[in-house]
């Protein structure tokens, strides 16, 4: 293909590219069919019967997040901001994943809850539980729809299929394997998706590096093309990312806003993530899930921000867009970074792998939403409030049925998103705000036995409302923050408000009796029940959670120094 018009992103996919994509679909559906044999109870369907080994849940843990939205968004950040993109990983994700594995997982796994909302139910009772279950279930179906629409848009752009065909076909495939095999099928496919994504990103990075003449060539080209090249080539203080000019405040924004509140909120309380760890086969494996996932998470950003930076200098369209200061209404934006690279760098064959990687990323993102939605809907809403005390196979049937309903709603959302693109963007930002106060509530709830049920519920509502308020104020110009900076500030305010309000409400309401909090609050839980077995297949120093956790923190710190 030659460059026709500057907005032509169509790939000239050949027959072999489609064969590679088709083969992937065959394996995806095959996994669904095979996984079905292991589903004989609702726990099998929703939590893989708590039987998964740690390397599988660990890879699924990061894969559920390494969706297309992430790949598109982070390569775009790489093209726009350069090296500071790494903060989303080394300051953002990694410490939070280590905290989840070392501190919080013993409570989640040890209390045998089947979902994050169920933990809230046991700790705080129905008020907080209902607030969280409803907001989570709603968020997940809508996010599934957003993912579906984004997938359809990309397929339309790259391959020329009509949007509605892409929506129906991909929803049907996701529906088929999640209804058949439940969480097991979703998890196995996420692991496979992880490897396909690496198989897409690695050649892209290598070819791109050769094209720009290695790292020194890239530095020279970035320096030549940008007046603020220094900010793009060093990770700290990351002022271009936060939009906060003062370097000290910028670092505080990154460490507290992004690193602590946003990331801890997302990684430790988002059930779509935690569910992967809950499906592990032992406490030891559950604790190692986020820790094992943290290693590839630390390294994969190298395959994301570097191609992004390369695209901004080797793609003529993107370079022109960046040089012009990212004009509004341009046919090419930073969000097209990965598509431009795939189009310009990969020949037929590798092109098929890349298309497969993108499609896989979208489908896995949707499957993660759907498989966490059906669990929360069935256990936390249906079984808890609507139809109680039925035999287990009834809830298994409900789970399968609600998976279908969820996919249908997602298809509907996808078509609506086609009409109101900006609204969907906004909704997604909004759902991000549920996590920061949730983390505050969990933290207080796990370590302060006095905290009352009423405080749990009101804290969540006030916290979320504060985040929304900050965001709205910023949108209407009352605060002047960049998009990224506003997300950090909104989350921080939500976190602080949640803590303040929870403490105040706790002081004037009645706490739960201590006997009901055993296993849920640190000071009331026997130390032995938070420990895991370290014999048999859990033996060995390299399987110790502390060793794994410290190891990955050292790795992230070392990389931070390399890219200082």
């Amino acid at each position, binding site marked *: 293909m030659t460059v026709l018009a500057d907005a032509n992103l169509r790939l000239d996919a050949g027959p072999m590219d489609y064969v590679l994509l088709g083969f992937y679909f065959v394996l995806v559906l095959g996994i669904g069919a095979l996984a079905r044999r292991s589903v*004989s109870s609702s726990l*099998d369907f929703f939590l893989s019967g708590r*039987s998964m080994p740690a390397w599988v849940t660990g890879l699924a843990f990061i894969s559920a997040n390494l969706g297309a939205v992430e790949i598109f968004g982070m390569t775009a950040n790489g093209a726009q901001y350069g090296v500071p993109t790494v903060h989303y990983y080394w300051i953002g994700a990694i410490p939070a994943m280590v905290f989840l594995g070392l501190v919080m997982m013993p409570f989640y796994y040890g209390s045998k809850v089947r979902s994050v909302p169920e933990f809230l139910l046991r700790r705080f009772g129905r008020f907080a539980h209902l607030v969280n279950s409803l907001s989570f279930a709603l968020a997940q179906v809508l996010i599934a729809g957003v993912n579906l629409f984004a997938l359809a848009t990309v397929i339309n752009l790259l391959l020329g299929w009509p949007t509605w065909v892409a929506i129906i076909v991909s929803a049907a495939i996701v529906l088929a394997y999640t209804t058949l095999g439940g969480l097991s099928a979703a998890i196995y496919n996420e692991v496979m998706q992880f*490897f396909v994504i690496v*198989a897409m990103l690695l050649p892209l990075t290598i070819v791109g590096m050769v094209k720009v003449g290695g790292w020194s060539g890239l530095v020279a080209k970035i320096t030549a093309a940008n007046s603020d090249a220094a900010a793009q080539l060093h990770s700290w203080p990351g002022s271009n990312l936060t939009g906060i000019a003062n370097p000290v405040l910028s670092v505080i924004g990154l460490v507290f806003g992004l690193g602590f509140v946003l990331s801890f909120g997302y990684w430790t309380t988002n059930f779509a993530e935690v569910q992967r760890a809950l499906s592990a086969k032992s406490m030891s494996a559950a604790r190692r899930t986020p820790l094992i996932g943290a290693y590839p998470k630390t390294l994969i950003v190298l395959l994301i921000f570097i191609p992004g930076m390369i695209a901004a200098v080797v793609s003529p369209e993107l370079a022109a867009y960046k040089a012009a200061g990212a004009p509004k209404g341009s046919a090419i934006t930073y969000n097209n970074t990965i598509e431009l690279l795939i189009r310009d760098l990969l020949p037929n064959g590798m092109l098929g792998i890349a298309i497969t990687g993108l499609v896989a990323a979208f489908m896995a993102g949707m499957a993660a939403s759907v498989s966490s939605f059906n669990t929360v809907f069935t256990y936390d809403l249906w079984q808890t409030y609507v139809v109680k005390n039925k035999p287990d196979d009834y809830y298994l049937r409900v789970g399968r049925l609600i998976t279908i309903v969820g996919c249908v709603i997602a298809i509907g959302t996808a078509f609506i998103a086609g009409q109101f693109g900006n609204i969907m963007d906004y909704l997604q930002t909004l759902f991000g705000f549920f996590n920061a106060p949730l983390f505050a509530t969990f933290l207080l709830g796990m370590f302060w036995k006095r905290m009352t049920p009423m405080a749990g519920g009101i804290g969540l509502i006030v916290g979320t409302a504060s985040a929304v308020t900050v965001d709205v104020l910023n949108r209407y110009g009352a605060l002047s923050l960049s998009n990224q900076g506003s997300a950090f500030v909104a989350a921080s305010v939500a976190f602080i408000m949640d803590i303040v309000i929870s403490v105040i409400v706790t002081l004037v309401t009645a706490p739960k009796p201590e006997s009901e909090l055993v296993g849920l609050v640190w000071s009331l839980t026997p130390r032995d029940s938070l420990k895991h077995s370290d014999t048999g297949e859990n033996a060995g120093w390299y399987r110790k959670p502390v060793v794994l956790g410290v190891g990955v923190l050292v790795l992230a710190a070392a990389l931070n120094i390399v890219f200082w």
Partner: protein
Amino acid sequence: MSEPVKKQRAGLFDLRYVLALLFLVYGVVLTVMGLGFTSQAGLDKAAGININLWGGVVMLLVGIAFALWARLRPIVVPVTTEGDGTEPADDATGAGES
């Protein structure tokens, strides 16, 4: 919240063989394309590197590695107290520990 009956059924296939299959097929296809079916234009795109060939060879190696891992460290099915919990080893869950 009633605790569901705990099941120790180990009833899945070994994911490592699926990954091996994926990468062996992808590896063969890409290697063949790299050897005989990558046009000059395709080579130019990738800065002169025969990325299909190199990618294909690496994928073949990865596929072989997964197959070897699964072969050398097969899944051990935990012997459970329930009578129906003993399934053949080749039909067992996930994979061995990493």
